[in-house]
C-alpha cells in the first residue's frame, strides 16, 4: 500500500495538467452556454470534445485513432481526477461517450462506427440510451417495445421512459424486443434510431427540481421505420450488450461519484462554521456529528473505491466495486439533507431557488436520481447479496 502512485504516473499527471491549462474551455464560455440536458452539446462542448479527441485525451485508455493514447488504468484514473478537480466536464453527453460509443465500437458495423460512434467522439452527435419502459424499470429484461423485421427494415412500436437527453439527442441506442417467443433475456436486440424519424415523439418529463430544464423524457414510438443495417451486432443479442453497456458505465463511474461527494462535502464544510455559529450548543453538537459522519463517508468512499480499483489493476476481482453505487449515492443523500438542516433558519431550507444556485434541499432531491436510476439501491443490495455474497435467489 502507498499513498501515492509512482513517479511515472505523476509525470503523466503533469503532462495532462500542462495540456489542460492550454486547451481547457474557459469558465466564461462554460457559464454562457451551460449544458441543460445530458445530451445537450453546446458549441464550446463540441469544440472541447474535438480538441480532446485530436490530442488523445478524450478516452486516454483507447488507441490514438479512437481518441486515446493507450493509457493504463492508473493513468486514466489520474486523468479523471484532474478533470474533476478542474471543474471541467469531460463530456456533456455522458451516456453517449461512456456507453453508446464504446458499445458501437465493440459490437457495431464499420458503417455504424463511422456514422454514429465517431461523431460522438468528435463532438458532432449526441446519443441517448433507450432502456427503461413503463413496465420495465429495474427489470430491464421485461421490456416490450417491439421491433418487427419486415424485409430490410424494422417496424418499431412501443414506449420508453426515463430516457435521459432524448429531447436533445441525435440518435437513440434503442433496446427492443425482436423475438417475443424466446425467454425474455434472449429476445432483445439493439437498433440505432435517428430521433428525427417520423413516428418518434419525445415528451419531456419536468422534474421536481429545475422543471424548466427537463432531462428525462418519455419516448413514444409509433410505426417507426428503421433500416435493418441499423441493427447493432446480432439479432437477439441485446442482453449481452445491456450488460456490456452497464459495465462500460460502471467502469470508473465510482470515481466521479466519489469526487462529487467530496466536492459537496467540502462545500458543506466551508459553509458549516457560519451556519453552526447561529445554533444553540446542543443543536450545534448534533449538527456537527452529522457533518462528521458525512466527512467519514466521503473519506471512506474514496478509500473503498481506490482499494477496489487497486485490486482490479492487479488483475484480481474487486467485490468492493459493487458497493460503490449504493454507498456513494446514499452518502450524498445523507449529506445534502444534513446540509439543509444545519442552519438556524430552517425555513430557508425549504425555499426554492431554482433560478440560480440550487438550495440544499433541491440538491437533496436531485440525489435521488442516483439512488433510483441505473439499478436502484434496493436492486443494488440484491445484486451484492446474490452476486457478491452468494446468497440464494429469493
Amino acid at each position, binding site marked *: *500500500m*502507498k*499513498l*501515492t*502512485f509512482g513517479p511515472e504516473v505523476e509525470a503523466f499527471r503533469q503532462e495532462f495538467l500542462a495540456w489542460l491549462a492550454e486547451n481547457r474551455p474557459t469558465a466564461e464560455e462554460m457559464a454562457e452556454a451551460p449544458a441543460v440536458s445530458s445530451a445537450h452539446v453546446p458549441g464550446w462542448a463540441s469544440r472541447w470534445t474535438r480538441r480532446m479527441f485530436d490530442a488523445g485525451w478524450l478516452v486516454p485508455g483507447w488507441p490514438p485513432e479512437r481518441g486515446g493514447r493507450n493509457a493504463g488504468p492508473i493513468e486514466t484514473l489520474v486523468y479523471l481526477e484532474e478533470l474533476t478537480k478542474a471543474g471541467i466536464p469531460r463530456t456533456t453527453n455522458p451516456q453517449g461517450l461512456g456507453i453508446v460509443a464504446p458499445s458501437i465500437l465493440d459490437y457495431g458495423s464499420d458503417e455504424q462506427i463511422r456514422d454514429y460512434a465517431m461523431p460522438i467522439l468528435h463532438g458532432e452527435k449526441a446519443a441517448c440510451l433507450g432502456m427503461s419502459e413503463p413496465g420495465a424499470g429495474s427489470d430491464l429484461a421485461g421490456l416490450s417495445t417491439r421491433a418487427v423485421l419486415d424485409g430490410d427494415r424494422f417496424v418499431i412500436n412501443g414506449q420508453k421512459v426515463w430516457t435521459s437527453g432524448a429531447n436533445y439527442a441525435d440518435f437513440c441506442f434503442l433496446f427492443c424486443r425482436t423475438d417475443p417467443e424466446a425467454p425474455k433475456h434472449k429476445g432483445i436486440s439493439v437498433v440505432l434510431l435517428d430521433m428525427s424519424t417520423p413516428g418518434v415523439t419525445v415528451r419531456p418529463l419536468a422534474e421536481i427540481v429545475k422543471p424548466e430544464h427537463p432531462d428525462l423524457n418519455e419516448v413514444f414510438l409509433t410505426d417507426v421505420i428503421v433500416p435493418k443495417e441499423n441493427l447493432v451486432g446480432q439479432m437477439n443479442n441485446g442482453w449481452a450488450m445491456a450488460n456490456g453497456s452497464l459495465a462500460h458505465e460502471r467502469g470508473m463511474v465510482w470515481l466521479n461519484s466519489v469526487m462529487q461527494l467530496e466536492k459537496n462535502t467540502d462545500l458543506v*464544510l466551508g459553509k*458549516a*462554521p457560519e451556519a*453552526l455559529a447561529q445554533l444553540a*450548543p446542543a443543536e*450545534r*453538537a448534533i*449538527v*456537527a*456529528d452529522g*457533518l*462528521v*459522519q458525512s*466527512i*467519514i463517508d466521503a*473519506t*471512506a468512499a*474514496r*478509500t*473503498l473505491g*481506490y*482499494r477496489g480499483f*487497486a*485490486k482490479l*489493476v*492487479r488483475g484480481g476481482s474487486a467485490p*468492493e466495486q459493487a*458497493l460503490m453505487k*449504493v*454507498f456513494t449515492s446514499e452518502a450524498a443523500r445523507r449529506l445534502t439533507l444534513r446540509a439543509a438542516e444545519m442552519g438556524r433558519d430552517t425555513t430557508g431550507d425549504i425555499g426554492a431557488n431554482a433560478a440560480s444556485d440550487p438550495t440544499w434541499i433541491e440538491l437533496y432531491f436531485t440525489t435521488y436520481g442516483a439512488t433510483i436510476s441505473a439499478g436502484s439501491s*434496493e436492486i*443494488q*443490495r*440484491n445484486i*451484492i*447479496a*446474490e452476486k*457478491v*455474497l*452468494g*446468497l*440464494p*435467489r*429469493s
Partner: protein
Amino acid sequence: MDLELSEAESELRDNVRAVLANVCPPAVVRAVYEGKGDVPSIWAKMVELYWPALAIAEEHGGLGQTFVEVALVAEELGRVVAPGPFLATVTQFAPALRELGGDQPLATGLLSQVAAGELTGTVALAERGTWEPAEVQATAEEHPEGWALHGTKNAVLDIGEADEVLVVARRPATTGTHGLGAFLVAGSTLTATSRTVIDPTLPLADVVLDGVVVPTDRVLAAPGSPGIAAALDRAGQEATVALAATTAGACRVIFEQTLEYAKVREQYGRPIGSFQALKHRLADMYLAVERATSLCYFAALTIAEDDPRRGQAAAMAKAAAGECQALLVQDGLQLHGGIGLTWENDLHFLLKRALSGNALYGNAVHHRSRLAQMLGLISESTEEDA
C-alpha cells in the same frame, strides 16, 4: 493512492492468519474465557516469528517495516480474538517509547528488548475513561530520588503480562497539554486491580500509583519537556488504529459467520438468506465492514508515511470501526437467532472483542467529537456556551 496490499503485505497477512488458526483456534479462546488459557505459548509463537520486531527500526534490532504491517497483524488478532501482549506491547508501549524517547538509550534499549521478544510492556495513560493526554490528572512531583507519582490510572491493557509500564503523569498545577511527563515503572512494583470485563482476552486493570518513586534514569520524558503532548498524540494514533483494525477484523468474521449461517439455516423450507429482508441487512453489514477496513488501511498508511492527515485518519478509522461493530454486533447476533445467545457457540467471543475494541482508546462517539473539533465545527470547550 494504492490501497491494496502489496505482495509482501499479502504474504505477511496470509502467514499470520495461518499461524493464528493453528495457535489460537476458538478452543483456545474458550479456555482463556474459562480461566484455563495458555497465553504465554501464543506469545512465544509470535516472538518466534518476530512479530514484535516488525515495525521497530533495524538499528534497534527490529525488522524496519512500517505500521501497515502492525495494523495487518492487529486485524488478524481481531479475527481470532487472540489474547496476549501484542496489542499492549507492540501498538501502545513501543510507539510511545519511540515517540517520547527518541534516541535516548533508555528508549532504544527497551525497544531492542521488545524487538528481541525479551520484554513486554503497556501504557498507563487513561483516567476516568479517557485516553486524551490533556485529561491526565495523575501527578509527578519532584522527589530527592527522582519523581513521585500519584493518582489512579484506568483500563491499563494486559498489565499482568507487562514487564514495563509507561506511566503518563503531569507536574502538579499544570493543565491541558502542559506539564506532561512519561515514566517507566516495572510492572511487578505496581498495584493493579483487575477489572471484570466481557472480553477476558483484552484484560484491563486499574492502577493506584500511590507515591511510587521513579528514579531519574527511568524518566522517559521529564514533565514539561517540549513536544510531549504531540508525541503522545502520535503514539496514540498507532494504538487507536491498531484497535480499530482489530475491531474491524472481529467484525469481518462476525459477518462471515453470519453469512454462512444465513446460507445453511433453513426455515419455511428454504435458507433464511434467500429472504430479501436478510439479504439487504447482510449487504449493509458487508458495506460497514468494508467501509471500516478501508479507513483502517488508509489510516495505517498515513502513519506509515507520516502524512499530515494521520490524526484525522486515525479518528475516522476508529469512529468507523465503532460504527461498524454497532451494526455487526446487532445484526450478527440477531441473524444468528437463539443459538448466538448461547455460551457454547463461539460467536460471542467475536461480539465481545468488537465491543471492547470500540471502547478502548475512545469509542466512535469520542472520535467523532474529536473530528468535529479538528474540523472546527465545535470548540474544544463548551464552557463558553454555558
